[in-house]
């Protein structure tokens, strides 16, 4: 079957994005990428993907605008409260046995998951001995995560999630409201390193005890998922933990033998000794 014209254009556009700027979306799951590119093309006012490609190649100012569409990711604090409850009740007791801890929030987007984990670790008395790495490919998302600002409208949901996750404090202890926004306390970032890192092209950078990477790999094709899971495998300390999204799993990964199901229900895996 011959490809449709738009599919050819999209392939070329992603190739251009990689060749010119080294952002690699070529092995992402196409149906979602197509949807996002379609939005970008229409919103940015281009007739065709080819026209968008020409602008991207010749005008670096187009890059951040396009990336805004490709990397947009909405999450919630304590999304899937039962996941955070499992971290709190089942994973934390293991982590307590270490004198120092490293936690990696891979694909942290605008920081919802990061702040959730920092608050959870503070509630459990582990924050002071933990270093959190929050990484993403989007500079823009990292800047937002570092700012710790969230629309006040979302706080009701976040608060409800936090409570359901077994939160031991009130979420309102951690932010102040100003101009319709919740400003999260900067002390929550004292143990956080924000960094630009790509699961597609970058390598292992530290040994981790917990990696949380939820609803990120769902956008990758199988090869790319394998690469990312390989990174996690090589990054985790023996008996370290990997948490995935509710609809992600390691079943089809070539690295699945390196992990055991720690909480099958919550998609939490534990690195197993070789």
């Amino acid at each position, binding site marked *: 079957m011959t490809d449709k014209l738009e*599919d050819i254009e999209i392939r070329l556009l992603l190739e251009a994005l990689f060749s010119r700027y080294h952002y690699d979306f070529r092995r992402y*799951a196409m149906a*979602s990428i197509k*949807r996002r590119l379609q939005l970008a093309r229409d919103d940015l006012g281009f007739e065709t993907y080819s026209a968008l490609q020409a602008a991207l190649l010749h005008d670096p100012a187009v890059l951040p605008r396009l990336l805004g569409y490709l990397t*947009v990711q*909405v999450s919630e604090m304590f999304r899937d409260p039962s996941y955070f409850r499992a971290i709190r009740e089942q994973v934390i007791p293991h982590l307590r046995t270490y004198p120092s801890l490293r936690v990696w929030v891979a694909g942290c987007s605008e920081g919802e998951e990061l702040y959730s984990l920092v608050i959870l670790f503070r509630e459990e008395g582990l924050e002071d001995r933990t270093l959190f790495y929050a990484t993403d490919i989007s500079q823009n998302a990292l800047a937002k995560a570092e700012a710790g600002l969230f629309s006040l409208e979302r706080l009701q949901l976040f608060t409800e999630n936090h409570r359901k996750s077994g939160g031991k404090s009130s979420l309102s202890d951690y932010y102040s409201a100003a101009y319709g926004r919740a400003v999260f306390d900067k002390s929550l970032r004292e143990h956080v390193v924000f960094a630009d890192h790509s699961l597609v092209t970058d390598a292992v950078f530290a040994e981790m005890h917990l990696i949380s990477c939820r609803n990120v790999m769902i956008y990758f094709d199988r090869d790319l998922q394998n690469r990312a899971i390989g990174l996690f495998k090589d990054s985790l300390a023996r008996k370290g933990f990997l948490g995935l999204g509710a609809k992600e799993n390691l079943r089809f990964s070539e690295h699945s033998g390196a992990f055991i199901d720690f909480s099958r229900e919550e998609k939490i895996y534990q690195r197993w000794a070789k």
Partner: protein
Amino acid sequence: MSTPAAVVIGASAGALEALSAILPALPASFALPVFVVIHLPHNRKSILAEIFSAKCRLPVREAEDKEPVVGGTIYFAPPDYHLLVETNYSLALSSDEPVRYSRPSIDVLFESAADTYGPSLIAIVLTGANPDGADGLRKVGEAGGTMIVQNPAEALAPEMPRAAWAACPAARSLPLAGIAALLLGV
């Protein structure tokens, strides 16, 4: 019309009753995959697959990311994820933002399925109290697929089929029994 290769169905308020008049009517020999999006409350485990497994002669499953599409199977979108069909005939889930406040979104499913199946797709908008599905149904029509809406007069919540019909005047409006009969005839 091309030989049908897949069916997509979207429904919201009143979905269970409406689907109960269609899915259990499909015979074990039904050869097409059926993809279903129903709007659900968030953070709740879906029991749709269980409910319909008990009633249907076809296998019923909650869609898994990247699984290859198998004919004669009914797939439900999981709660809080969009369901899409890739052009290589595998399923994809996404955590992208809600569309018209909905995740899963009927529009998202219909658009990706239209892209994959083109004129071989049958798309059905059932009862519901919001306009999700109207844009998706239009894309199905633009790709040459078959557009069907539940007769709004019969629908428990008429807004959704009405909005879809308004967006796609060429769509056929059928009662549930007529939709089931049409599917039995493919």
